[in-house]
């Protein structure tokens, strides 16, 4: 089936099998491997991307369902000059990662939270990231990373 998807600002057209999952479409056809495969069954959240601004687990979305939509992956979050998004910077500064495999999904799930709630409490951050698993860092630093980013985003908004 023919689909047309805008990924990180660039429109692509592809002829795909109806059974192709969005995660495989992004990784294998679009070459965007920052979207990781973890559990394959919508539990771990490593494959989280933004679809029309909403966080989705791309292992549970068919590529054909993404027809006509705008997708943002981790590769599309950095600025034009490669400067890191506050969430990306926060995960680095606050040490919200070790192996880093869950990180892109965590960041995109947190992105949805901040777009809906610029002042999240720690409890709200935990609630928003319940669908994302991390095996090695421990979640404490991840919460701090999102708090750090929330503050930075607010500061940027005030400057603008």
């Amino acid at each position, binding site marked *: 089936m023919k689909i047309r998807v805008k990924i990180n600002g660039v429109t692509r057209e592809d002829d795909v*099998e109806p*059974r*192709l999952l969005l995660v*495989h479409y992004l*990784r*294998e056809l679009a*070459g*965007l*491997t*920052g*979207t*990781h*495969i*973890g*559990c*394959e*069954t919508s*539990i*771990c959240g*490593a494959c989280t991307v933004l679809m029309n601004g909403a966080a989705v687990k791309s292992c549970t979305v068919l590529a054909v369902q993404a027809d006509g939509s705008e997708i943002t*992956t*981790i*590769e599309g*979050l*950095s600025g034009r000059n*490669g400067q*890191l998004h506050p*969430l*990306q*910077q926060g*995960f*680095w*500064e606050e*040490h919200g*990662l*070790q*192996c*880093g*495999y*869950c*990180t*892109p999904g965590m*960041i995109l799930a947190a992105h949805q939270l901040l777009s809906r709630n610029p002042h999240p409490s720690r409890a709200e951050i*935990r*609630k928003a*990231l*319940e*669908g*994302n*698993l*991390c*095996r*090695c*860092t*421990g*979640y*404490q*630093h*991840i*919460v701090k990373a999102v708090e750090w980013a929330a503050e930075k985003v607010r500061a940027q908004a005030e400057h603008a």
Partner: protein
Amino acid sequence: MASCKYDWPAAGQRDAIGKSTDRIDGPAKVSGRAKYTYDINRPGMLFGKMLTCPHAHAKIKSIDVSPALKHPGVKAALVIQDVGSEIQWAGDEIAAVAAVDEATAEDAVRLIRVEYDVLPHLVREENLSKDGDRAKPAGEQKVGDPDKAFADPEAVISEGFYGIPVITHCCLETHGNVVEWRGADSILTHSSTQNVSGIPSQLGAALRAKKINVQDSNIETICQYIGGGFGSKFSIDRWGVVAAELSKQAGGKPVKLMLDRDEDLEVAGARPSYFGHVKVAASKDGTLTAWSSETWGTGGPGPSGVPPVPYILTNIPNIYKKHTSVSTNIGPARAWRAPNHPQACLMTLAALDDLAAKLAMDAMEFLQKNIHLAPSYLVNTYQQELSKAAELSEWSKYWHPRGDKTPGHLKRGLGVSLHTWGGRGHAGSCNVIVRPDGSVTVQSGTQDLGTGTRTVIAVVAASTFGLPVDAIQVEIGDSRYPFDGASGGSTTVGAASAWTRRGSVDALNELFAAVAPSLGVQANQLEARDGRIQVQGNPSKSLSWKDACAKLGAKTIHTVGKNPGPCNLGSVGVGGVQVADVTVDTETGKVKINRLVAVQDCGLIIDKLTAESQVYGGLIMGVCYSLFEEKVMDQTIGRMLNANMEFYKLAGIGDIGGELIVHMMTGPGYDERGVIGLGEPPVISPGAAISNAVANAIGVRVSQLPLTPRRVLAALAKGGIA
């Protein structure tokens, strides 16, 4: 003590060493640029899939892969285990295909026809009386006269049954490789591995055994980033060899063969179980006098491992212990972060906690009283750590005798545990290269599991050269670089810090020799500080790092740093203490973690941030196996029932509502021991600490991990506060 030329700088002169340095691989990981093995897509790449055995124990009667080979899009197919092979666990690999895409490979696997003779299996071992001849003696030992000690009418004796089931590693990135032939006699592998330097010789030997001729020196392995290993990724594994064979059959095309999640959970990692009856005795004042344990466990078809009990308090005067290894059809065991220690820790510290309760003693006081029974070199450390943990957990405020008597269904309790680990740096090496333009590169065939190897290398080199951390280029994760050992057993930071230090000191001395004439002094009068090479104590006679390196002219400095080597840069043997603070809902049986306190020694810290991260991570992994993780096997069908991440549950962010408090023991008395590894220690104690906290809260021991609501309610039904 005479100083040695590679010694760590004195306190106050360590630059970045011991401070908090952000991990240098952070930007690559947060931007999606970091390529894990699963992310490697090579030109013309094929996808490999395997057919696995559905039976826990069977013999292959017939096998036919030809229908798969005829399927459109299939480029290779092979039999992994042929007719007559006896299969010892469900999920074992039988045949494989490589096809143009993953879905086609899956379709083709379904076309392979296999007939089995099904044989009897055993997949549950917790009831030793039902294990029959699968149970084999695995060691018996007697010290002193335990019978007499237990017969002492003055002795206070506690008896209990404790257990910890088989769990898996559940790395977020599954096991696998992308393998390709570069011509007839050369192979490139991208492997999700903790053992970059070791993979080529493993693969070479396996292929030569199959009459496929390739020499180790023509095999290159790359692993820049890995999504978890925890002890399960040391080997090329059968599926890596299969990928190489499929690639050869397909004319050398790259074959990506990553395990599916269910395969990974079923076959690619299991920590041996440990069950046992324990009897312990103390005199009325709480001094431990005797230990007796009859334990068993399974490590799949192979041996179970023998956890070292009594743990820590090894000098109990009277000891009897006997262990039995049960051979089962659950899949092979693999090293799981701190092999044998979490099991031994639970068995010992839970039994001692029950004894303390019987003595009506404060558990912390009981451990302090008996800590002299620990190995002498750790006694002082434990005394200090127990005090620190008591302080940080506000033990005297929150601890109470067994059973929280406050009204309501929420019961709070505290538990304590302690642990030890070795952690000496393994054998390994690096290149240190200083070029005339001032650039500095350190190369090693080591790996960074997320633990911070890259950052440690940069911090040590930068601190030696007097440069900022970002001035060091670190190149690792490729077997063409100098050999380094596997990252297992907390051996990497000790090795990487030492070989980087030795190589960097030698390189600096070569630079001093090149620069000395232009500063009009001898090389041994120079020092590297703040980005300059200067006469010691005289910054006015100096050259910037760049100008100094320019004196090299056309020469590039290249030294090799090795470990082991001269000067004591590392040591072995750490102690740690942890306290768990939990609330148990006696209506639902749910355990909630309020706080975990970890007090940990690891000698000289190189990067405080990555060190603390290791402890945080260890705590969370500890919560996972304490509350959730179990490889649930079904005796009827012989298979794992929860081979997916929905039912093989890990702690999510909502499961850890409380605070994790980490305190590193540093400064005099600790730093001078040099660098000691930290990966394993913090994951050892949580099982015992949390189990003890639950017993403290509800007044009764939940005998087995994980402490699921079902087990908590069953224990409450037998007694407890309520």
